[in-house]
Each structure stands twice: as structure tokens, then as C-alpha cells.
């Protein structure tokens, strides 16, 4: 059961880190706008397209931002690798 260092695992590890980075960006954006702008009394809210500003930025713009980031990551940062082993296992 020895795992030979496979070049593909470097790619996979790298992409998992990208996943964690995306989650952190996502969380900070979501949290910052929601509880930053939304923390004040409702009577002080600003409105965009009829919605409270915090909600518009946190939930709607935040969602579009993540879609955009995921597209950028997929287009420019992920690597195409084969999943099957080139040589057969000798087990």
C-alpha cells in the first residue's frame, strides 16, 4: 500500500486549497455586508432596488461574485489531468 508521489496529487492538493480560499472570501463577504450594514436599526437602512442594502450586497451581489470567481478559477487555475492510472496495478 505505498503511495508513490504522484504529480497529479500536487495538482489536487493545490485545487483543494483554492476551494478553501474561495470559501473564506465567500464567508467574509457574506458576513461583512450582512452584519456590518445590517447591524444598525432598520429605520436607518439604505435601500437598493427596493431591498435593504445589506441584503442586496451580502446575498445577491455576493452570489454573483462567487459565480464569477468560480468561473475565473475554472478557466484559469484548474488543470486537466487524467483520472485513470497509466500503468495497471499489480495487486
Amino acid at each position: 500500500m505505498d503511495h508513490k508521489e504522484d504529480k497529479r496529487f500536487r495538482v489536487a492538493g493545490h485545487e483543494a486549497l483554492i476551494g478553501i480560499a474561495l470559501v473564506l472570501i465567500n464567508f467574509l463577504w457574506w458576513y461583512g455586508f450582512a452584519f456590518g450594514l445590517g447591524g444598525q436599526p432598520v429605520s436607518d437602512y439604505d435601500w437598493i432596488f427596493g431591498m435593504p442594502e445589506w441584503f442586496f450586497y451580502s446575498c445577491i451581489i455576493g452570489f454573483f461574485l462567487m459565480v464569477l470567481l468560480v468561473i475565473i478559477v475554472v478557466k484559469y487555475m484548474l488543470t486537466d489531468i487524467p483520472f485513470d492510472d497509466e500503468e495497471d496495478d499489480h495487486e
Partner: protein
Amino acid sequence: MNSMALIPLFAFLILIFVVGIYTARNVSRADSFVQEYFLGSRQLGGFILAMTMIATYGSASSFIGGPGAAYTYGLSWVLLAMSQVVTGYFVLLILGKKFAIMARKYKAVTLIDYLQGRYGSNKITILSAISIITFLFSAMIAQWVGGARLIESLTGLSYESALFLFAVSVLVYVIIGGFRAVAITDAIQGVVMLGGTIILLIATIIAGGGMENIMMGLKTENPNLLSPHGHDGELSARYISSFWILVGVGVVGLPQVAVRAMSYKNSRSLHRALIIGTIVVGSIMLGMHLIGVLARVVVPGIEVADKVMPLLALEVLPPWLAGIVLAAPMAAIMSTVDSLLLIVSSAIVKDVYMNFINKDAKEKQVKRISFWVTSITGILVFLMALSPPELIIWLNLFSFGGLEAVFIWPIVLGLYWKKGNAHGAIASMVSGLVAYILFHSFAPNYLDMHTVIFPIVISFFMYVVVSLFTHAQYRQNGWV
């Protein structure tokens, strides 16, 4: 219920049924029955992959319970639900390529095969099989009850006939078609879920006289509905954030989701699924929960929160369109149930029967056993859903959190941390499960965070500490 609305609903049931049966032809043609029946021969493309993940994960609660809660709590519940956007990309990026490579290396068809390949321990196999069968079996029953209640309230059929109708339409294609039938019907159901959400959102905004009008209506009723802290100001930032673990990143540990990450064809389908998955899961979660909030102004005074979505659809849409939109929750329930059924059946056939009972089972035997196990499981679920026992309801309450606490670290650290070993994994699974049961019973929402948080932290430390502690022993024996 208007009969004009029933026609599209039944047409949808029939469509799913026919497509499921049509797909079943692949089972008899496949090179390996087990690979095809439980994993669709690892041939899923990007679109089907994204849709089956979302449909499996988005259950009755996204379409019935979720909008109902949003109706009560206001925009804060939409905020909470948006933590699920993360599942669209996180699961695929974390498990991603490494899981696909290792699963192929171990020739794994189920999550348990993968754990067996990685840790080589029968104890883990047994422990996992027990957790999966117990938790998912009860989760399945809860979904069926939801599905039957929905049909019951829409059609006026009795609960028993509604359940029967629902059971037959799901069981037949799962039993004969296996994973591929499930994935392809999931994809159709996913499209219906997305379409239904968009139509209903637009119709609701129009019926309420525009977004601004509705929001002002909410403000007049109770300004707190527009704050991120809920209608009575009781939802703390910490509580809402803790859902990032339960319904966001923790989803990596759910067997029914993880198994899909071994089913894709190649990197390209994985890449496409990342984009499609993020867009679709975000739109459905944002749309459906926002609909729930808006409904408070459009159809005020609904007392049973679970009825918000059906009542709203019938109110703001022409009947035939309401029928199409109401197929969405049904699709969500069906697509969750079909996957759970197959996971439970694969745990019994592949992980228990083929590992321990009959090691050299012939292809034909396995085929026969698989059909029987899937059928009997389905029938058992049907019988139990007729009047769910107390224990099942209790188990279902924490099935997702419990599974996450059990599986997340053995899966994730098993992939990325070389020193992780079987002792660590067992310690992590047992402590995660026990901690979850204890927290659930004695200190739910401890420190104002969802119950799942501490068990996941505890099982992480157990995994790391025990693995490090036993590492030397493994190295001595040349196991690493």
C-alpha cells in the same frame, strides 16, 4: 386543488417514470453490473453531475420547510440559506480530482469501498455501514412522509394512496435502473426545481406590486423581518454563521454527496459541474427562500409554515403553471429519496454482503441480490412511512449532522494527510457520533451555535491525536 393544476403534476410523474425505465437499459448492457448499478460506470458528464448533486442535496426542506421558515423569520433566513452557495463548489474542489483518482485506484464503488481502500480496516467498514444504513434509512422515511403529505394536500387523495403513488413511481426506476437512472432523473428534477423557482419568484414579485412595495409592507408589519437577526431579533450572527458548517462545508462528509464525486467521467466534467453547480444551487436557495419572505405580504396569515409554497403558487399563478411549479418540491423529494435508497442498498449489497457474507459472489448472484435488497428496503421504507415510529423521527432529526460528524475527517484527512491511519479514523468516527448524540440530547445549540459544530471539532482532534500517537507503530510494521 384545481384539476388544471393536477395534469402537469401527473405528467411530470409519468415523465420521470418513463425516463427512468428507459435509462435502465444500460444496466443489462454494462460490462460490470456493480459499477453500473451503483455508480453509472463513472460516466457522468458535467451537467448531469452538477444537477444530481444539487437535486440529491436539495430536499423537502429546501422547497417546503425552508420557504416556510423564511416566511416566519424574514430576510435573516435567506441570509442563513445562502451559506449553501458554498456546497456548489466546495465539495467538488475538496474531494475533486484526488478522490476520483483514489477511488479508481481502489476500484471503489461506494464511499465505504474508498475508506476500506484507504485504511484497510474491517472495523471501519462495519462502523460506516451501520451509520449509513441507520441514518439514511430514517432520513428517507422522513422525505417520503413529506412527499406523501404534499401529494395529499394537492390532490385530496388519502395519505395512504398518496404515499403509494409516490412510492411506486420512485421505486420502479431505482430498482431496475440503478445509479444512472437516478442521476438522469435527478437532472430532469433539477431543471424543474430551477425553472419552478424562477417562475414563482417573478410571479410573486409581480403579484406583490414590485419588490419595493413588498419590502415596505414587511417594514410596516415588523421591521425586524428585514434585519439579519430574525423577526424577534433572536438569531445571533454566530448562530447563523454556524450553518456554514452544517449545510455548507460539512456536506463533504455526506455519503450520498461524496459518492457522486467518484462518478464523473473526467476533469472536464468536473470543471463544468463546478460552474453549473454553483449557479444552480445559488439560484434555487436564493430564489426559494426569498419567495418565502415575499409571500408574507402576498399571502398573509398562513399558520402552517409548510403550506406557504403550495398556497402561494396556487394564489399567484394560473392553475396549469402552478401545477408545473409544484412539481419542483416533488422533484426535490423524489431526487433525494432515490439517491438515499441506492446508497442504503449499496451499503448492504456491496459493503456487507460482498465483503463479509459472500466474498466470491458471481455477477448473476450480485445482480439478483441487488434487486432484492433495493426492493425490500423500498418496501420497508413505505411501510414505516405509513406511521413512522418515534425512534425514526428522532434519528432523522440528526441524520445529516450525525453523518457529517462521523465521516468528514476520515474522508478529507484520509485524502490529504499521509499520517492519518485506521486508529485515528475509528477514534474520529466513534467520538464524532457519540459527541453528536450527547450534544444533541444535553446541550443543543451550545454557545449559540448549531449542535454539529463541537462534534466536528472533537472528531478532528481525535483523528489527529490518535493518528500521531499510533503513527510510530504503523511505521514499525511497514504499513506506511
